[in-house]
């Protein structure tokens, strides 16, 4: 393809002798929308960064012929000085986390103006007018005011829009978008995607979108490149690849959408609810501004008026965007935050006295989101998983404890056969999904009846997410466990929950059985959530 905008041949990237990208070949035509998909560690971000040689420690080889405004050139053999001419002007990049990608000490206007002055040679007044124009193109309201804002004064979505405005300032021929929507709330993702789509069409630029989200690929891209372990395993038009995936890895990615496999409706039988909340309210003290803050503290209400109940064997899904109070709700249910209102766990109440809570602690356990911070790095697997026994079954002998730990690990699919010396290993030797299994085993060992799952799979890759959800479903069927499932992912709710609460700004805006609620959402907010996930 001689008319390709970008023609990458035999691209290899290595860090200290360890090859992370192995012999990549791909082309991007002018104005084409290509998605680069793969799980974390597959080398997709490294590929994009190496094209602009933004990885100083990496050893990059191969060729990447790019048809820039100064004619054809090999990006990988240009001098640093020549490459600077390409960066920003012909090829622009937007990053995953807009807060860290923008300089917090400059207004977004200054940052866009800087690009325009450097790359386009505009004077300051012209550059400022152009910056305002760019911001208004990205749909930021009141762009004349917003150019004077610092990054922290913008919302996450606005920040990402500002990033996009900055990237598009010089009308690049190729835009590298590295997970541009991952850090945003679900409802915002669709908007940013539509924005990129519109701008792409308007300017006729090519986009290389790096993502792990297949919904996004299906919606946005024309062609898809699937990467696994630094290699391209499959590429082709999106419709073809999704309809007829050739490579088993692509197939597993496409099949990774969580599947509903729960008992429904579970035996109700008038059994008393395991968790029952009425008028639950949680507030945090926050400092007040000005002189008043010296004498009084304000209150931020994170959750209010929450009524719900979870019968045995049921899953209550709580969905909402970040800051909607869903994690606060989880911590309150665990008795880890002071709250007002009524909250009954298995007929008992949380008390201030931790000793009296001991019996309840055995009933309710928790699995957190981040598999890296949820296990103490300095304890062995045996110590981590066995800890609950030292509290709740201190009479067991050492051998009985060990046997129980092994049984709990086996339940979550971790065995001595797979991992020799499993019990004496430390968390850093396990992958994210395996750590999440360890966290589940730690919760299971005290034989709880309710497990609070706080975004249990959102830090995991899609294929791993499916496995962990299947594990949770099996445990629920076998032990008739109840779950309080906190998530922002509609697919996960659809697969797991029996009843759903939708939260927004600390309020429960809608609740009901999962099928009814998701198929016919009454509240407009629920509707955007469901639409964004489709």
């Amino acid at each position, binding site marked *: 393809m001689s008319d390709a905008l970008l023609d990458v041949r035999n691209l290899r990237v290595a860090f200290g002798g360890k090859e992370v990208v192995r012999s990549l070949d791909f082309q991007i035509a002018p104005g084409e929308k290509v998605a680069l998909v793969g799980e974390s560690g597959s080398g997709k971000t490294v590929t994009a960064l190496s094209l602009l040689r933004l990885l100083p420690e990496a050893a990059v080889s191969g060729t990447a012929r790019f048809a820039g405004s100064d004619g054809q050139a090999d990006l990988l053999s240009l001098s640093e000085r020549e490459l600077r001419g390409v960066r920003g002007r012909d090829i622009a990049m937007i990053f995953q986390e807009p807060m860290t990608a923008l300089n917090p000490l400059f207004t977004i206007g200054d940052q866009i103006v800087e690009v325009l002055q450097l790359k386009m040679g505009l004077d300051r007044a012209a550059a400022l007018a152009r910056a305002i124009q760019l911001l208004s193109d990205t749909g930021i309201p009141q762009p004349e005011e917003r150019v004077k804002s610092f990054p922290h004064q913008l919302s996450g979505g606005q920040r990402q829009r500002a990033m996009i405005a900055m990237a598009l300032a010089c009308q690049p021929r190729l835009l590298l978008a590295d997970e541009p929507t991952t850090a945003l709330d679900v409802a915002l993702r669709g908007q940013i995607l539509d924005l990129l789509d519109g701008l792409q069409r308007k300017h006729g630029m090519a986009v290389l979108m790096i993502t792990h989200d297949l919904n996004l690929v299906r919606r946005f891209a024309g062609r898809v490149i699937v990467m696994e372990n630094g290699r391209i395993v499959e590429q082709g038009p999106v419709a073809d690849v999704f309809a007829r995936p050739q490579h088993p890895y692509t197939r597993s990615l496409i099949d990774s959408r969580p599947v509903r496999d729960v008992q429904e409706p579970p035996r109700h039988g008038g059994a008393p609810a395991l968790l029952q909340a009425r008028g639950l309210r949680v507030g945090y003290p926050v400092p007040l501004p000005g002189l008043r803050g010296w004498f009084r503290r304000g209150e931020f209400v994170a959750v209010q008026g929450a009524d719900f109940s979870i019968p045995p064997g049921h899953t209550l899904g709580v969905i909402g965007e970040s800051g909607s109070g869903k994690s606060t709700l989880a*911590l309150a249910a*665990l*008795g*880890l935050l002071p709250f007002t209102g009524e909250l009954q766990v298995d007929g008992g109440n949380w008390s201030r006295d*931790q000793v009296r*809570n*001991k019996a309840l*602690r*055995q009933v*309710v*356990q*928790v699995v*957190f*989101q*981040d598999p890296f*911070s*949820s*296990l*103490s*790095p*300095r*304890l*062995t697997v045996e110590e981590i998983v066995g*800890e*609950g026994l030292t*509290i*709740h079954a201190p009479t067991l002998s050492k051998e009985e404890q060990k046997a129980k730990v092994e049984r709990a690990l086996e339940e979550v699919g971790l065995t001595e056969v797979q*991992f*020799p*010396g499993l019990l*004496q*290993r*430390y968390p*850093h*030797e396990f992958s994210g999904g395996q750590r999440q299994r360890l*966290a589940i085993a*730690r919760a299971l060992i*005290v034989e709880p009846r309710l497990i*609070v799952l706080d975004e249990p799979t959102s830090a995991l890759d899609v294929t791993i997410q499916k496995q962990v959800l299947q594990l949770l479903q099996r445990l629920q069927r076998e032990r008739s466990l109840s779950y309080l499932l906190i998530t922002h992912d509609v697919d996960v709710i659809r697969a797991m929950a029996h009843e759903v609460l939708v939260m927004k700004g600390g309020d429960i805006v809608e609740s009901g059985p999962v099928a009814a609620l998701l198929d016919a959402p009454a509240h407009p907010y629920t509707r955007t959530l469901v639409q964004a996930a489709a």
Partner: protein
Amino acid sequence: MSTVSLSPSQRAWLRFKRNRLGYWSLLLFCTLFVLSLGAELISNDKPLVARHHGQWYVPILHNVPETVFGGDFQTPTDYLDPFIQQQFAKEGNFALYPPNPYHHSTINYFAKEPNPSGPSADNWLGTDDRGRDVAARLLYGFRISVLFALALTFIGVLLGVLTGALQGYFGGKTDLWFQRFIEIWGSMPELYLLIIFSAMFDPSIALLLILLSLFGWMGLSDYVRAEFLRNRQLDYVRAARAMGLSNGQIIWRHILPNSLTPVVTFLPFRMSAAILALTSLDFLGLGVPPGTPSLGELLAQGKNNIDAWWISLSTFGVLVVTLLLLTFMGDALRDALDPRKAEK
């Protein structure tokens, strides 16, 4: 995958060992310290063992009166006396002297030059202005400095970790009041207090240790507090609370082991700071009681006898080497515990 699992501290130790400079500094420092612990065997004015008229003596353990060896008085034997040495040189008699036959308090009455005398075969690094062997005083002074530094570091770490842990774990009011206390305590003029107290009490090592400990824990406490504040809101601590662990168990099992990185990293630097503090106070004459071998006192002598270059130069050398070894160890330790490197 290897079947041997290494704990994070074991991996940090491996990373430390990979730093040649730091590792060899540690070995050298430990060797010097162990040697200085046996200073009595290396530098002493009494023979290790002696044989006289078919009888065995161990003079470094027991005082033997001079009459035993043919002297005139019941006083303890001066083994450097040429007469006594002649006795041991006789047939059948024998005395094994330490390599450097001077104790730190021994005055060489038999020096060929007036005090302070320069380096010679008798006194390798010369004598000080009272005729005491500089090499011996350096050896004993090094030992006192290191022991003092170890004790001060230990107490400082203990206090710092304890106060930092309490503030960081409980936060809120506890933290607020403790911080205000530290601010007031930290703004006391430490040096003036030392001068006042050394005027009020008899100077002694114990007094110095107490005074310096009172002010030495604050810096570390801030670091430990910050680590506790960070760690206590991590999910593994929340999970432990949800499991029903008591505060004590959470602090001891979960947060403390994960909060010790700054403590360990600063150990060598705290040691060198302690050695320097003792040396400076001794130099000013506010430190150890007179007669105690100390690096600071030697430096002061070097200043008073500027011509006797062997005093200041050798003391300076010992100080520089000691502090350099500690700094190298500290650098290596900091690299080994660097979380960015630990991830790999």
